[in-house]
């Protein structure tokens, strides 16, 4: 049985005075224990909303969630608030994009780390402090005893993210969701944090959902990759297959300008003409059609269905032919 099974997850926002907006539209995927799964796509494609829906963190008012999210056989979407709260931080952990604003500025690091330990593992303060020192050590924060008494602004960006990772992993959750955990960090730090995450999930056997718009991150970390466009999965493949032979025109476009870890900070992928703003609704077309080089007439008249092609999931009327990518293969081998 899969650790996490997301079936037909749909999230729409209903705000007064605004048209209903479907941010996530029938997304299904699975995460096996210990597996690292990537969720990739441009800004606004619904990556964060998907992860917040899994964690049960979307606002009650205004956000409508349907479908199913089962974790070890338990349907999370039907859990009571209290039961879901007991699972967050214990069974499922999450790391966010901006480490500074994710920490409470007026509480010491020590109190923030021990809070989780007291909450879920019932540790008395003293024991929790010792454990927190241990945890900071594990995530590579030097001089942890001193750091525990410091406040978020006294730590560097990388150290803050390490502290947040320590908090998310404090109760040894079986699933960690990392939502662009390196986007707000300097390039050199990004590589360190990714290496740390890789090491931690390997050592603890924690499954990881890695959310990113950066295929470079996926390349070094993920077993399987889901490519999201306009709230739907357009391609899913094992990492190797995806990089060697991207079949969906969108994935292909993303890979065409594969970013490297040494690229400038904040570099955004603009490999494809146009932007998400050009999306057309999925209802009777392919949302990617206005930007797609492979687009056919049918793409504007009929929604492409999810189909299996040689062990991968594709949502496209006219996928890129594998042969067309011989050059890209060469690139990757270098």
């Amino acid at each position, binding site marked *: 049985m899969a650790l996490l099974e997301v079936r037909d997850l749909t999230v729409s926002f209903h705000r007064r005075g605004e048209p209903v907006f479907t941010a996530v539209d029938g997304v299904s995927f699975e995460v096996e224990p210990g597996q690292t799964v990537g969720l990739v796509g441009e800004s606004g494609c619904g990556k964060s909303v998907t992860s917040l829906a899994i*964690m049960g*963190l979307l*606002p009650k008012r205004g956000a409508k969630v349907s479908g199913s999210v089962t974790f070890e056989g338990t349907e999370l979407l039907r859990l009571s608030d209290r039961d879901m*709260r*007991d*699972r*967050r*931080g*214990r069974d499922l*952990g*999450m790391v*966010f994009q*901006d480490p*500074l*604003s*994710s*920490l*409470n*500025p*007026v*509480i010491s690091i020590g109190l923030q780390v021990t*809070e*989780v330990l007291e*909450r*879920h593992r019932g540790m008395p303060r003293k024991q929790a402090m010792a454990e927190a020192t241990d945890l900071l050590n594990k995530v590579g924060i030097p001089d942890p005893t001193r750091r525990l008494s410091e*406040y*978020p*602004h*006294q730590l*560097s*960006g990388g150290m803050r993210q390490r502290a*947040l990772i320590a*908090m*998310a992993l404090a109760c040894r959750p079986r699933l960690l969701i990392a939502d662009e955990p390196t986007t707000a960090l300097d390039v050199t730090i990004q590589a360190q944090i990714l290496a740390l995450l890789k090491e931690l999930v390997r050592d603890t056997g924690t499954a990881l959902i890695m959310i990113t718009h950066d295929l470079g991150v996926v390349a070094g970390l993920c077993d399987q990759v889901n490519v999201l466009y306009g709230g739907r999965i357009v391609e899913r493949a094992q990492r190797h297959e995806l990089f060697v032979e991207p079949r969906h025109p969108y994935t292909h476009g993303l890979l065409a300008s594969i970013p490297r870890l040494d690229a400038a900070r904040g570099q955004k992928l603009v490999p494809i003409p146009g932007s998400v703003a050009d999306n057309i609704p999925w209802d009777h077309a392919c949302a990617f059609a206005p930007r797609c080089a492979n687009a056919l007439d049918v793409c504007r008249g009929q929604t492409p269905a999810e189909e299996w092609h040689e062990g991968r999931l594709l949502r496209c009327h006219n996928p890129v032919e594998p042969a067309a990518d011989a050059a890209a293969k060469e690139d990757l081998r270098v």
Partner: protein
Amino acid sequence: MTGTKKQRIDALAESTVDKPEDSGVSLAASAWRRLRRNPAFLVGAVITVLFVAVALISPWLAPHDPAARDLADQVVKARNEIPPAQPGHPLGGDPQGRDFLSRLLVGSQQTLMVGVFATLIGLAGGLVLGTLAGALGGWVDSVVMRAVDVMLSVPSLLLAVSISALFARPSQFTVIIAVAIVQIPIFARLLRGSMLAQRGSDHVLAARSLGVRPGAIVFRHMLPNSLGPVIVQATLVLATSIIDAAALSFLGLGNPDDSVPEWGQMLGGSQQVIDSHPALSFWPAGCIIVVALGFTLIGESLRDALDPKNRR
């Protein structure tokens, strides 16, 4: 100071959700650094320290008993004669023949005390209501905020006068209560705004992702972040409380027993003789204005110092 009272409170509430930059110094330290360089703050601090010090030692500072009618023989009601300045009585006597300087000095105690207590009670009430409204939302929020809006739309002094008129027997206590009630909506609105702004903030989301319970979210992760704006507002409210309380006493809605001096009440007592003896009105009025100015200067400079936009 621009915008309506409501807008100013809301702007202050917004400032809770600022993202501290990595400047290497603590927020408090960087705020203090800017405060120290601000002349307005220094003036306000000197005034405040001076008045508080005087209030504390006034019983020993006062040359005479403020209740004793030492100069009663010099008072001639019919001819509007009031004891003038003379050796031992540098400011002369009041219309009852009591030493005016002693009353002025000792009067600072009552005035400051009323202001402080009214502010604290108003703060406590506003803290509870605003936190409940912001944290619970829904109908609690609607009910509290409608009441707050109504109260804020009435000029504060008018409201204070109406409230104290409800009490059968006016006293120092009723003055404190009336002024405190007027301050409650200010703090309620501030806290509620601050709670709402933080409800969607990253650090609250991160705490929720760790399974932190709602109570701990409010008390550990939200309220402490509202502290800065609350301190600023409390300092400013202290100034208006002092003025409002003095106004109530002046209007005869304060303590009827004038053996314990208080500036507003002294001002009221000097009112009939303001043409012939303006100094008797000038001193208490001046003291009220200056001490209120002191708190306002401190409050305004604290606001600037804590404003994330000014951080360096």
